[in-house]
């Protein structure tokens, strides 16, 4: 009898019988803009974010802080966890620009590997370049707006579909060496790796 009973003890399988269930991931939305640009000494007001899962409001945890006396780039992370334990998060970028008038004008034409990257000034510390990776002419040429934070650091916030071919890109490690040289690496959604891209002024 015992032996016969053992035969009916089945092996464990990966069947999901009766254990499948739906989990509602947290939907998060930010109060205000995902990019905030301040001038040194300004005030950053935390207006938070919202999270819900299956119609139920979730608590949002806020990590990160902004020191408006120090020019830099700050990230505020808003996270929430749904009732089944699955996390979600969104990030706000806060750029604090130096209060000094910039001593370096980066507008002009720069080159990398023989390819031009034309930088246009949009404001005292705001620029736009038309070939952020210094690549050959074509649909993958990335246009990127960037900030001269303190005449030493450059930051280009995440920009969606910023090439004709639809590449999204960001750069978080730009350095101004002198008025004629600057460099960064680009985090791009396709086509480009994270090589150091050094630009030299040609006019």
């Amino acid at each position, binding site marked *: 009898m015992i032996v016969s009973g*053992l*035969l009916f003890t089945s092996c464990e399988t990966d069947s999901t019988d009766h254990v499948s269930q739906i989990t509602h991931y947290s939907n998060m939305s930010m109060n205000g803009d995902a990019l905030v640009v301040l001038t040194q000494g300004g005030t950053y007001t935390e207006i938070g974010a919202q999270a819900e899962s299956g119609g139920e409001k979730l608590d949002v945890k806020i990590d990160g802080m902004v020191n408006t006396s120090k020019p830099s780039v700050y990230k505020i992370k808003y996270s929430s966890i749904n009732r089944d334990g699955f996390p979600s998060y969104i990030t706000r970028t806060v750029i604090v620009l130096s209060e000094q008038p910039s001593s370096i004008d980066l507008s002009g034409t720069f080159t990398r590997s023989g390819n031009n990257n034309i930088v246009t000034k949009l404001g005292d510390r705001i620029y736009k370049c038309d070939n952020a990776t210094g690549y050959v002419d074509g649909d*993958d040429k990335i246009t990127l707006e960037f900030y001269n934070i303190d005449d030493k650091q450059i930051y280009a916030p995440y920009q969606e579909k910023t090439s004709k071919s639809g590449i999204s890109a960001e750069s978080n490690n730009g350095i101004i060496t002198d008025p004629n040289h600057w460099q960064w690496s680009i985090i791009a959604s396709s086509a*480009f790796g994270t*090589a150091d891209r050094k630009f030299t002024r040609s006019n």
Partner: protein
Amino acid sequence: MKKIKQFITGTIATVLILSSFIGCDEVGETTTGGTSAKNLAGEWFIDASDASGKVSEHELFSTYNTAANNNTLWLDDQKSFKKFKIKVTFEKDGSFSTSSASNEYGSVTVTITNGKVEKEAAISQGGHKVDKISFKVEFSNEPGVLYSYEGSRRTGFSEDE
């Protein structure tokens, strides 16, 4: 009659006991190892030059282990320039060579000298630091002519293609 009954019961019991020892099918070892040639294997973009200068530029080239999975490696130029696919012998330090190796793509035999793969010693077309491959080639139909092959590991980024 009683004995037959006992015998049958005994037999059934034995079969049942034995069958209960048949275990469930467990999945065996799931971690896979690499091939013996994994450090040298891959795809490359190669320039070839002779005494006069560059004769071939940015051609896709492959290196991969042989079926024997020992200290031999296939060098395959994907029929791009001189059309050769040959077996070379490699050492632990990443160097490789062969003498008058038969060619899968033709009758010309191939000699390889000074072959090596160096970690992050090359810059790709797009500016990335990648592994470098280099070797000298002599073909049996051009005795005395030494071609120098040099290339960088393929990254897959389209700016490097």
